[in-house]
């Protein structure tokens, strides 16, 4: 375990450095315990696979005080139940125009492009947490052959719906944003809509599968999404 300041206003608490449900349960449990403190000096909580970043008001709380606030919560924390009932299917079109990094991923993983697609679409995934951008679900469960590095230079603009992979994780960009993951496909579904409750299509604890679709179905589903607005 590691506790260290991330900035003059943030404390970083890490339980390990590889994805496992065991480690993640401790993160989720600490996240809920800190949330229950309802301490106004704590401004934001950023849970991730194995870590929790706590953003706080440095004029009214020090790193040391915060550490002594959370230390007992770390000890007491009971393993959280992570599973939700959801099994969610996300249609993804892996056509070239949506997959600018497919060739690079195939080369890196020593697979054919078809094998990369089949491997990605054949996996069972689990939503660990939301982060990065509203509605971005970090998925664990990516097959080992597909673990590839992030881009050397992140893109300034990634189109909403793009499906990316980086290291041991995969995810869908819900909004157009900058991004450094390797892009191998795109979903026509809207992943985040601030006017719905909950606004995010995927929730922590959901199980996710990708279904490969062709360009025709992509366009059809994209049109349905527009009508549904």
């Amino acid at each position: 375990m590691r506790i260290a300041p991330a900035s003059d206003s943030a404390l970083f608490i890490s339980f390990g450095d590889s994805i496992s449900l065991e480690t993640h349960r401790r993160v989720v449990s600490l996240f809920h315990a800190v949330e229950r403190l309802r301490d106004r000096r704590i401004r934001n909580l950023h849970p991730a696979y194995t870590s929790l970043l706590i953003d706080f008001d440095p004029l009214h709380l020090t790193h040391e005080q915060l550490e002594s606030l959370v230390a007992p919560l770390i000890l007491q924390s009971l393993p959280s139940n992570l599973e939700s009932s959801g099994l969610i299917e996300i249609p993804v079109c892996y056509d070239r125009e949506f997959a600018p990094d497919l060739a690079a991923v195939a080369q890196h993983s020593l697979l054919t492009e078809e094998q990369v697609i089949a491997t990605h679409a054949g996996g069972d995934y689990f939503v660990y947490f939301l982060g990065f951008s509203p509605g971005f679900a970090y998925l664990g469960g990516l097959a080992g052959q597909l673990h590839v590095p992030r881009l050397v230079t992140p893109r300034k603009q990634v189109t909403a719906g793009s499906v990316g992979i980086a290291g041991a994780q995969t995810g869908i960009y819900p909004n157009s944003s900058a991004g450094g993951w390797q892009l191998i496909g795109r979903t026509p579904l809207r992943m985040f809509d601030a006017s719905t409750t909950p606004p995010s299509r995927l929730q922590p604890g959901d199980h996710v599968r990708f279904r490969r679709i062709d360009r025709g179905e992509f366009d059809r589903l994209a049109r349905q999404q527009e009508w549904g607005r």
Partner: protein
Amino acid sequence: MIRGPMIRVIKPGLLTTVQDLGRRGFAHLGVSPGGAADSISFRIANLLVGNDLNAPALEITLLGPTLEFEVEATIALSGHGTSASSPISLPMTEAFEVAAGTILAVGPLSAGARAYLAIRGGLVIPEMMHSSSTFLPVKIGGLQGRALQSGDELMIGKRTQGSFRKLSPVVAASLWPYQGPIRVTRSIQTDWFNHETVERFNRQPFTVTEQSNRSGLRLAGEPILASHRGELLSEGVALGAVQVPPNGQPIILFVDQQTTGGYPKIANVIAADLPCVGQLRPRDEIRFQSVKIPEAIELLRQQERALHEAFAS
């Protein structure tokens, strides 16, 4: 329905958005803090017109809007520059009256990247996740989640908390734009970079590139390369984090930041210098300077004290 007093947007300016002091408590949903890029100038503008500190106001980027006032109003501009206007010069950091029917053209800012235009009473903007600030990447908050457009109508509210305030010039001088290096503390992966690289990071100049916005400022300079190799599992990132992708060109994560990320972070901008980051223009040259956390907190306290004292008299 009774229509409130209106301001009509004749020209929107380069990028004018409604901002307040931001939204907190939604980082676990991937929602960044947002809010005014320079929270000091934002608060000064609201204080000058006697508004509550968080009243929605306009954030102007480089080139201001042209606005038609349907009613008499009291407004104030605040930023790093000393003037903004065309054809006549508008006072900065001082409240002034505009008569009904006035067309106010806020021109190019003389310095800094952003200025704030506060109107006594604030703007009436519905809150989205406890804030009126415009979050452009996801199109939420502000005016339908977007920047101002010609033809928009803005309604003036009633969010005052006192009379107009004057900024004491002596104290203002101590608040006035800090021009030195951007001060940073260590971050979670500082030790991914060897000692010489960290030293060089704190010494060499970087240029702010055109690829910069409220989400992040991309810098260009002699590459800063990590000595440790590895793919980081994505983790929470703090406001002002300086992350370094493998190309060695640092990115300062700013108010509309990603809430988690996986590039290593070499440093983190101190809270007191975040408003200065909001004033950086593309092509500006900057340097970083390393400080310890207690010094960073002390600088923040001094800044808050100065802001308080500037309006005390």
